[in-house]
């Protein structure tokens, strides 16, 4: 059975970007912001980051680790990794379909 992807509304894209950022290891908020901004080329505000983090944590897709000073790292859970893989496969299928259709129409 395919894992259910929670509906995050307008935080769906930030949530996906955060999951991708955490896929190579735990990070705290500031490191996630820097990673997302360098990867996507778009800024992610602190308000958006924490709104998405709260939702991801609530759904059990990420979990907090012990804080270092006041900075708390987060890591992907097994459920989060499965969920991320499913989302990326869906995006990949969508991208391939789009590229195929574009290729068929090209002269």
């Amino acid at each position: 059975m395919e894992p259910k992807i929670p509906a995050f509304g307008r935080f769906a894209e930030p949530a996906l970007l955060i999951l991708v950022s955490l896929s190579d290891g735990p990070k705290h908020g500031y490191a996630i912001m820097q990673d997302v901004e360098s990867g996507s080329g778009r800024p992610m505000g602190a308000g958006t980051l924490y709104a998405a983090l709260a939702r991801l944590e609530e759904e059990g897709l990420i979990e907090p680790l012990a804080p270092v000073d006041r900075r708390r790292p987060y890591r992907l859970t097994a459920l989060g990794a499965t969920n991320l893989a499913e989302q990326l496969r869906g995006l990949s299928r969508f991208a391939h379909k789009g590229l195929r259709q574009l290729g068929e129409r090209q002269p």
Partner: protein
Amino acid sequence: MTRLLIRLYPERWRARYGAEFEALLEERPIGPFDVADILLGALDAQLHLRGRSGERAYARSFVMTLRIGGFAAILGGPLFAGGFAVASDTVASGSQSAGAAMVGVGSLALLTALVGLSAFQARVYPALSWAAFAIPALGALGMAVGAVGTMLGTDALIGIFFGGLMAFFLGSVLFAVATFASKVLSRPGALLVAVGPVLGIAAGGSNDVLTITSLACFALGWLALGVHAVRTDRGLPVSQPI
């Protein structure tokens, strides 16, 4: 600036994320985009207190209602009483239009408070709780009709305005009785809200000291109820995650 922005988030959100959020904001300069993003994030957190179970979701929506009702009471009580004092020239520097505006805003806030703070009482005294809202709601309508009529030069409608005002005080007294009898929120606050209008009627418009005392009781009573409601939120256990 950073702390002020964090204060916009709900108490329980700050208890869970406040320290790390503050550390994050201190790590880089905050620009207008960040401020706007944090304002939207705070609004989202205020409106979207999420829970895993239905019971917790209910508890959170209940807390939100209490909080809104509490702030409305804190705002509405003093505005309503102060507006009445100004409009009726009980205070020397009164201006009728300014006083009427204060009463108007105050009555809307108090209607919100009557809804937000009536959850406990409605379980025990549903009819009283409904009456405590319906009578002031009709009173507010009467005050609006009377105020508009007076502005248009129809002085005969001033009676409707004062009738509405009395209805508003009566509804507040009913709410106070339900609150006091239910033993919820601040009982001294409920007592003050009930005593205020009674003293006002006793003053009969001819005793300024008694009138001011009655208005002060009314305003202080609503303030006490509002503060109690807002503080109730802080007594709830911090849940993780929010």
